[in-house]
């Protein structure tokens, strides 16, 4: 909403400087986003001028040469590209040296002489944009015809404009009068209401017009007025100026008056050509499903029974509160007017507007819910203006169909409640003066309460806490002290999964990985590269109806694609090791096999959101000097991070070789804790990596923390350190080439007296038979209660070798 201080000052005295007034309004909830001083920079170099002739530009089809008289006696010839330029117009003309807003950069700049396509241009015909009046640079600003040539534009249009952000609860602030009321309340002034008295010189309205509300749930009130014999033409200069100041284009006096009153009072109005309303009978009813209707923007639309329409005896003439019809529109030939002032239900107007993709000044006001008292005021005000400014004659009386009259809202609030909410206890006199200033009537009923009548224009105030807010915002939120929370701290709420995830973050960061945060969506195409088709068919990812871009259409069931994309965007400039991770939710279809209680948020309908930690490691290891060295990172670099993570979370997993979609066969392991898969680690298949434009080895892991959570041990138990000496022994075993070293190690470590077994060499080649390999372990024997003898160790080793031979066919190398 834009509001002109010039216009405002008609209803309320503005004693504060604009900056102070803006700050006061902003603090009270009516945010002033910008203060525009229309004309402040214009100076004497921008004046009202007259277009005396237009000639084609010799070198450009789109440009024309305008001859302009700016009152100095000389004719200026300027190049102009605006399509709406016409001979006879009054326009805003800038001579060289004027301050204008640059059409490209938007910044203030000084107009310089220019040669445009070979023709000298001695000035400029300005648009609203170049004048800083609005963002409209569709065409030049056309001034009222009465504007005197040579007048500085600042004298004509100079004003201070507030650009306001009006919250949706305050439809009253979408009017100059409503803002004036607010200013009056905040500054202790009195509002001067606009006059609504008019001469009802015409015959009685009865018999000349009738209204029937068939849908009283959607239309609470409908007032029709008839004004005859109007002379259509331009509206007066002052009205046009005000409309322009608030961003409305003047059209003709009738339409301008309806717009003017809407801006002034906040009630949208619609003027029908009385003679085009068949039977002079208005019916307010639901539209027919599939009913065709052409709106005044000349678009054929299809209606539904959800939409409220205004109909005459031959059919629909307007979409209630949204847009009028082409046929009943006021035209050059119109002499008699049927003026509509009605209250339509906000949510219905909003729904209809959304369905038809029409948002008008009218609908955006109705949507917010307008009081049913307002049409009576607006109708009188507009009729008065139609009579006085268009030479019309108003019928005596109005048709006012108002099936269920609105009741005045009364609110009771105790002094104690105001203090309970605000933390301050303003004196009763203060509360009463605040409320009275806002147009409420507030009666103090001892010992403890106020009984308040709410003015009709404040439908947002319904309950006691609304009154508390009114008091606070007028007194000023600054008056409320800042206090620390008191009272007992509630019992803590603990989410173990969240805590596990936060620990995962810390562990990976400490281990040397860098956290990234990527968007929660990706494309189906990317998903098909990292997940098997069967999975995507059984659990189709959730699609967004209105994604930001096609790149973010599907909620991700895996972090893999985003990790690969993030890697790809970084390998371009980092050849050394990249180790990144993300912890985020994944979104999957509920698995019918899962018990309801297994779903994190217990909502049957919602996607299963799981906490997943994924990482990707790639690039060349750094050398002594921190340069990318000759060796690429490998599976075991990645495994180190995964092991650090699991250890840090208090879990120990086995790495079991598996085949996994998108990962390289033979270089992929499933992470198992007991029998449960908690994640996967593997080299991204080179083809898959290449499809993400990663042309180097990349190792990826993904761990589902939801699956891991029940398997981590919250407690960490220390085992005693033996005071007896350990015996170390190397053990080289010849086994089949595909025997897992991990399995060997587990068996060795499960042997009595063995404390630890570490692999320190793996060999296959000339020294061993084909299909075999040698795995060397450093085995540590130790007892907690005595010093081991050679005999004991020898015995344990023999037993171990026997088990290894039995289970794995292992032979001692060189033995």
């Amino acid at each position, binding site marked *: 909403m834009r509001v002109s201080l010039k216009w405002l000052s008609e209803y309320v005295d503005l004693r504060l400087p604009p900056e102070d007034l803006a700050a006061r309004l902003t603090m009270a*909830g009516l945010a002033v986003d910008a203060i525009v001083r229309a004309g402040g920079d214009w100076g004497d170099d921008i004046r009202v001028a007259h277009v005396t002739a237009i000639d084609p530009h010799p070198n450009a089809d789109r440009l024309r040469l305008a001859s302009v008289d700016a009152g100095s006696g000389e004719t200026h010839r300027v190049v102009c590209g605006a399509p709406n330029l016409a001979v006879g117009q009054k326009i805003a003309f800038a001579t060289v040296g004027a301050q204008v807003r640059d059409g490209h950069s938007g910044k203030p700049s000084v107009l310089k002489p220019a040669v445009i396509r070979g023709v000298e241009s001695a000035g400029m015909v300005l648009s609203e944009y170049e004048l800083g009046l609005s963002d409209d640079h569709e065409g030049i600003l056309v001034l009222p015809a009465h504007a005197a040539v040579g007048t500085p534009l600042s004298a004509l249009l100079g004003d201070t404009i507030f650009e306001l952000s009006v919250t949706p609860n305050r439809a009253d602030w979408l009017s100059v009068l409503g803002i004036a009321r607010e200013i009056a309340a905040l500054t202790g002034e009195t509002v001067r209401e606009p006059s609504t008295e008019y001469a009802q010189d015409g015959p009685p309205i009865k018999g000349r017009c009738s209204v029937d509300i068939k849908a009283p749930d959607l239309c609470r009130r409908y007032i029709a007025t008839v004004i005859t014999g109007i002379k259509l033409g331009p509206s007066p200069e002052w009205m046009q100026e005000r409309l322009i100041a608030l961003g409305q284009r003047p059209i003709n006096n009738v339409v301008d008056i309806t717009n003017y009153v809407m801006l002034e009072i906040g009630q949208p109005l619609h003027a029908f050509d009385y003679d085009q309303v068949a039977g002079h009978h208005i019916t307010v009813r639901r539209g027919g499903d599939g009913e065709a209707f052409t709106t005044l923007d000349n678009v054929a639309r299809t209606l539904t029974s959800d939409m409220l329409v205004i109909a005459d005896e031959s059919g629909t003439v307007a979409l209630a509160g949204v847009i009028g019809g082409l046929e009943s529109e006021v035209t050059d030939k119109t002499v008699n007017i049927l003026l509509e002032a009605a209250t339509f239900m906000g949510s219905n107007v909003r729904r209809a507007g959304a369905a038809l993709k029409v948002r008008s000044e009218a609908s955006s006001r109705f*949507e917010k819910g307008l009081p049913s008292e307002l049409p009576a005021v607006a109708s009188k005000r507009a009729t008065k203006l139609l009579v006085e400014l268009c030479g019309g004659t108003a019928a005596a009386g109005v048709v006012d169909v108002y099936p269920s009259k609105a009741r005045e809202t009364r609110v009771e609030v105790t002094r104690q409640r105001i203090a309970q909410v605000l933390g301050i206890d303003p004196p009763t006199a203060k509360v009463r003066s605040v409320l009275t200033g806002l147009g409420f009537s507030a009666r103090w009923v001892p010992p403890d309460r106020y009984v308040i009548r709410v003015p009709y224009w404040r439908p947002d105030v319904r309950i006691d806490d609304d009154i508390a807010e009114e008091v606070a915002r007028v007194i000023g939120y600054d008056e409320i002290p800042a*206090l620390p929370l*008191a*009272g007992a701290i509630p019992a803590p709420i603990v989410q173990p999964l969240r805590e596990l995830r936060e620990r995962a973050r810390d562990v990976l960061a400490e281990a040397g990985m860098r*956290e990234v945060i990527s968007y929660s969506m990706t494309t189906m195409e990317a998903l098909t590269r990292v997940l098997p088709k069967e999975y995507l068919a059984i659990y189709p990812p959730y*699609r967004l109806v209105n994604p930001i871009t096609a790149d973010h259409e599907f*909620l991700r069931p895996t972090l893999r694609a985003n990790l690969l994309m993030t890697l790809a965007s*970084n390998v371009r400039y980092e050849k050394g090791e990249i180790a990144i991770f993300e912890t985020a*939710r994944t979104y999957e279809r509920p698995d019918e096999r899962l018990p309801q209680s297994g779903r994190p948020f217990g909502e049957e309908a919602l996607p299963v959101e799981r906490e997943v930690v994924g990482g990707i490691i790639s690039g060349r290891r750094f050398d002594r000097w921190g340069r990318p060295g000759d060796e690429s990172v490998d599976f075991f670099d990645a495994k180190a991070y995964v092991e650090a993570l699991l250890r840090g979370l208090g879990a120990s997993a086995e790495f079991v070789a598996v085949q996994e979609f998108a990962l390289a066969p033979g270089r992929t392991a499933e992470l198992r804790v007991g029998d449960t898969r908690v994640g996967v680690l593997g080299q991204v298949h080179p083809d898959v990596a290449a499809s993400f434009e990663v042309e180097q080895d990349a190792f990826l892991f993904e761990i589902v923390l939801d699956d891991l959570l029940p398997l981590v041990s919250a407690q960490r138990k220390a085992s005693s350190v033996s005071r007896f000496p350990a015996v170390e022994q190397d053990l080289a075993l010849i086994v089949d080439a595909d025997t897992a070293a991990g399995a060997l190690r587990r068996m060795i470590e499960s042997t009595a007296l063995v404390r630890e077994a570490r692999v320190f060499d793996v060999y296959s080649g000339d020294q061993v038979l084909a299909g075999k390999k040698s795995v060397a372990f450093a085995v540590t024997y130790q007892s907690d209660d005595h010093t081991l003898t050679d005999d004991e160790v020898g015995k344990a080793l023999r037993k171990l070798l026997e088990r290894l031979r039995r289970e794995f066919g292992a032979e001692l190398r060189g033995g």
Partner: protein
Amino acid sequence: MANETILRLRDDAMIALRDATDQRGLDEWRVEYLGRKGRLTGVLRGLADLSIDDRKELGAASNALKLELEAAFDARSEELRRASVAASIETGKIDVTLPSRPHRRGGLHPVTQLLREVLEVFRSMGFSIVEGPEVELDYYNFEALRIPADHPARDMWDTMWVDHDIDGKRPMLLRTHTSPAQIRMMEQHAPPIRVAVPGRAYRFEATDTTHEWMMTQIEILAIDEGITLAHLKGTLLELMRRLFGRDRQVRLQCSYFPFVEPGAEVAMDCYVCSGKGCATCHQSGWIEMGGAGMVHPEILENMGIDSKKYTGFAAGMGLERLAMNYFGVPDIRYFYQNDLRLLQQF
């Protein structure tokens, strides 16, 4: 004669000891003079051939010499050790300005880091940290927060909808704020409640230097007897002071969110100019932090909480905007572009 032998031995030993310049020389010297078959032992062996008086005299002298030589040996060893340490230090001189051996430097995303700091402040004020789902039902994101369908306030949250029908309706959306957690918390817990709810939220919005369509929000909710707007102000003030310095001020200005009454926008005085107006605060002197207010009594009642007895406050803010100020990041979009050259600065 006997004394002469001792004296000669002493002279030889002392000269030889001075000639020993390393550990090996010292060891050889020790064997030669003090060893089991060494020269001093040789002298003692010769005692048998002497008279009792000579034996006594020579015995005493050789014992004295033994002690003297041992002391000399220790002194010489220490001298040599010191010399060798000094030498090795001299030869082992390094250029301490050379770069360190590279070490993998990991780290948390700046948004995570700031979130941790924010959560720590709230935790210290007794808030529990909880999270809720990112894909929400219209009910939690809007309706239960007093934003029914076709309510004009829906324009305040441009929504991304999930293509998923339930009973002919499409009620699933990406939460546009963390406020649904208010409802979930009130459903699950009776007052007193004090929670901070971090998480991702999504808006169907065009991006620019200060707008992202995915954001990390934090919501706080406190419900108890005696909670007022003053406590909301105090809680937010404490947060801003902990993050941006003890002299920060917090300003509440009236605003409207359907789920609070009274409602407020929260701003902090600019930490660069302390409210005078500068480029950081766009000359306003204030930096917007988020929305807040007292939990609407109808919501309390709908959740079965006696609004005459209990009051509560709620506030929500975007971490990215806060992080832009906190870390001096000029463009909000940098956070999720995941350029390691930026992330590694944190």
